[in-house]
């Protein structure tokens, strides 16, 4: 079984701060991390390797420094990592990204004979689109199993995956035909800490680098020119200011009174509408 895992290196959004003076996003000193969902995909890859002796390839499209993320991925004990990097990829939206990634997966398919499974995260915490996985599946014409939160079985003989996926309306127990693309929810597992031999191997590991020619891509379909959507503005939303602490370690009854008093000061129309049954006593 050959598996390709797509990972994304992102700035740790928990550490992104806003400089209120300049109204800029402060990214300096913000560490780059592997997207949380993708770490779970890597953990799955490590398990597949142990269970089926699967061969696991990790790819990322990104700038040269994304190599670091690939090295961290190799520390999961995986086989090969490839950085897909070229200036023509800059400014890619999801349509262009899925083009580049699917071309790369096709290239791996050419090299290895077959790709049986592609894993992506459910969504990347920086862009938050959740569109890349479904887009790659469409381009490769792979079966799409989005939002996988539990894998029950991989039946290699019959080429079907049994899994449970999460939807807004509930859970679905599904059978997915291989080759398939699964998007992984972070509840699926807890990623491991790499063991020492794998860690040492990963430090010395040098990922291969592919440019747009290596993946037979049409440069017009990549990057800015291959992207139908354009970001025309980016604004920092106004900060929400904290109000008063109206009660500090008071007797609970006093605290409750102060809370209700404070609430009454809000003359917001939606609030009044919401509390009307309360005020009028006809709940």
């Amino acid at each position, binding site marked *: 079984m050959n598996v390709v895992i797509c990972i994304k290196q992102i700035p740790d959004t928990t550490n992104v701060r806003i400089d209120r003076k300049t109204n800029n996003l402060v990214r300096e000193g913000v560490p780059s991390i592997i997207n949380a969902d993708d770490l779970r995909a890597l953990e799955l890859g490590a398990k597949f390797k142990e269970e089926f002796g699967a061969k696991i390839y990790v790819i990322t499209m990104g700038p040269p420094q994304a190599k670091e993320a690939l090295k961290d991925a190799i520390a999961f004990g995986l086989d090969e990592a490839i950085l897909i990097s070229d200036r023509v990829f800059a400014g890619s939206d*999801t349509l262009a990204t899925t083009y580049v990634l699917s071309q790369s997966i096709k290239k791996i398919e050419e090299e290895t004979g077959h790709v049986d499974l592609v894993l992506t995260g459910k969504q990347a915490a920086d862009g938050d689109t959740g569109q890349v996985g479904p887009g790659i599946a*469409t381009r490769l014409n792979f079966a799409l199993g989005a939002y996988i939160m539990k894998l029950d079985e991989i039946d290699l003989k019959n080429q079907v995956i049994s899994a449970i996926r999460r939807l807004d309306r509930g859970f679905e127990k599904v*059978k997915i035909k291989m080759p398939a693309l699964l998007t992984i929810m972070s509840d699926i597992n807890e990623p491991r800490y790499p063991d020492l031999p794998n860690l040492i191997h990963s430090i010395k590991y040098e990922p291969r680098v592919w440019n747009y020619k290596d993946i037979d891509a049409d440069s017009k379909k990549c990057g800015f020119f291959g992207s139908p959507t354009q970001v025309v503005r*980016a604004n*920092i*939303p106004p900060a929400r200011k904290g109000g008063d602490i109206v009660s500090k370690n*008071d007797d609970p009854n006093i605290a409750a009174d102060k809370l209700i008093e404070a609430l009454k000061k809000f003359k917001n129309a939606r*609030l009044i509408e919401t509390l009307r049954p309360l005020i009028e006593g006809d709940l």
Partner: protein
Amino acid sequence: MMENKRIFVLVEVVNDQPHPVSWELIGKAREIASKLEGSEVWGIVLGKDRDQICNEAIYRGANKVLYVKGEDLNDYINYKYRKAIVEMVRKYKPWAFLVGATLEGRELAGTIATELKTGLTADCTGLDIIPDKELLEMTRPTFGGNLMATIMCPEHLPQMATIRPGVMREMPPDKSRTGEIIVEDYTLPSLEPLIEVLERTPVTSKVNLQYAPVVVSGGKGVGGPEGFKQLRELANLLGGEIGASRAAVKQGWISDEYQVGQTGKTIHPVIYIACGISGAIQHLVGMKESNIIIAINTDENAPIFGISDIGIVGDLNKVVPALTQKLKALLSKPKAG
């Protein structure tokens, strides 16, 4: 241009019921249509026995409904819906296509846009039009809510967006409204079955977090599943729902349907009461658009107080029951007059 500019709105149907986001999007599409000459709002309904829902789409503001009628389309299966909808888009050539940003909607729109090779803006919270350019302006939060990006799709049609439930205003149904219902009898071509649904487990409770006017939310400070009972009591009293931080969900105190935040739901109730929640950024992105935020926490340095309108430093186990009692007393007071 001579041709009408059609704004498609997918009417998402869950267990034979329309999802409320569909009406919100039809309401928004009407507003956009009013600024764009020669435009029409089309509701797109898939499945069978959907006549009621088609009518309601008209009452809610659609000019027309495209009813893609087919036995195979009653349940949402991605590759089937994708096939049928792509065909309809190719036939009717909409100018814009709006889909609710439910998990299903985001998956579906992602596959459709890829097949059509058009742009798709995910999980928008704002939508407007530049009339002289006839372009949609789509606004969405990125970087964990730290940045609002405004996005356009200038050279490809349809301009597609998924839009977060609960953000746009629906119009009340008006039964006097009329409109054409175009029925497309649709038989799916024989396709390789890519995915098969063996079993569906609907969400157990009727959790209605995204539409609740009041959310009483609990975190690690609640201390256990028992602690959520007092939150539930307060929520019920205020006609609201309970919510939770990821820490509380991870402890197994409450199911993940209630989780608020980056990996949970994004909500903006009138009142959000955070009980025993520290206010981690991943939690805040899910609730900071609430009108009024109340925080109850024993630690006066908890970051939640940095965004709360009303802060109470105290033990939630004492303050919440006291608050519930006080509010109950207020309620039982006889009506004035």
